């Protein structure tokens, strides 16, 4: 009926908002309606579980994009992903402590 998940972020393709070692909580239920700009957890067929932002919605599929374009796989490489691959929308973001050096 619904899915609640906690995920630890690895990587920097979603900078500046989502940083390496941050945690996110995702949620989905049977009637979740995703919107453009939602940050979602997607089970990608070749890249595994990824955190991306919805760039566009085309019928029952989405195009994804990383916030940090310089360090994210391109939208074209990510491909059109069916809505069924989305595991949930990020509803809570727990930031890692800033590191001062």
């Amino acid at each position, binding site marked *: 009926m619904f899915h609640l*998940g906690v*995920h*630890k972020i690895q990587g920097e*393709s979603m900078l500046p908002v989502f940083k*390496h070692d941050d*945690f996110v909580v995702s949620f989905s239920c049977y009637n979740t309606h995703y919107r453009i700009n939602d940050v979602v957890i997607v089970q990608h067929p070749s890249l595994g*579980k*990824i955190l991306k932002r919805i760039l566009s919605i085309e019928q029952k599929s989405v195009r994804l994009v990383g916030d940090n374009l310089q360090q*994210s796989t*391109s939208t074209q490489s990510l491909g059109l992903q069916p809505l069924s691959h989305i595991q949930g929308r990020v509803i809570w973001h727990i930031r890692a402590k800033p590191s001062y050096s």
Partner: protein
Amino acid sequence: MLHTIFSQLDSLLRFDTTAAHCDIPCKIYDPSTAQIAALSVIRFLDLINELDGASLSLADQAKLSRLVSEKETHAAKVKDEVRIIWGDYFKQPQFEKYPNTNELVHSIMLTGSACKTTIDRANGEKLLALVNEFADAFWKTKGVDTFTAECPYPPSEQVVYPKLG
């Protein structure tokens, strides 16, 4: 505070990790890997076809099995390497310069699959020709001229090389 709690929970429960990275933007792209893999496919096809008609010993059968496996691995490698360059390097300016790139890459995918499923040398030759065409376009997008020469090792096929230096 919250992050500390989640970190402690993570050490106990091992939350899933989600990748907010995929490719390091190293900008190192080179079609030579795909070209060498395509040459390997032709070489494996030749070696497979050399065994045709002979009564195969157990050792020959083991060799045939390895050759077929390697042929398919290298055909898949061609597809992987080309797909990465097409997906990550080619962007609007490159597509504008070479508008038939998508069709070319699609042909490479189809021919790569044909090389996996058959032992027809013509498929291997076609795959190399297409990858050479792709390599030529790739180097031209970087303003690097190319030349064609016979590779100095079996299967002695024509390969597109960049003119560097």
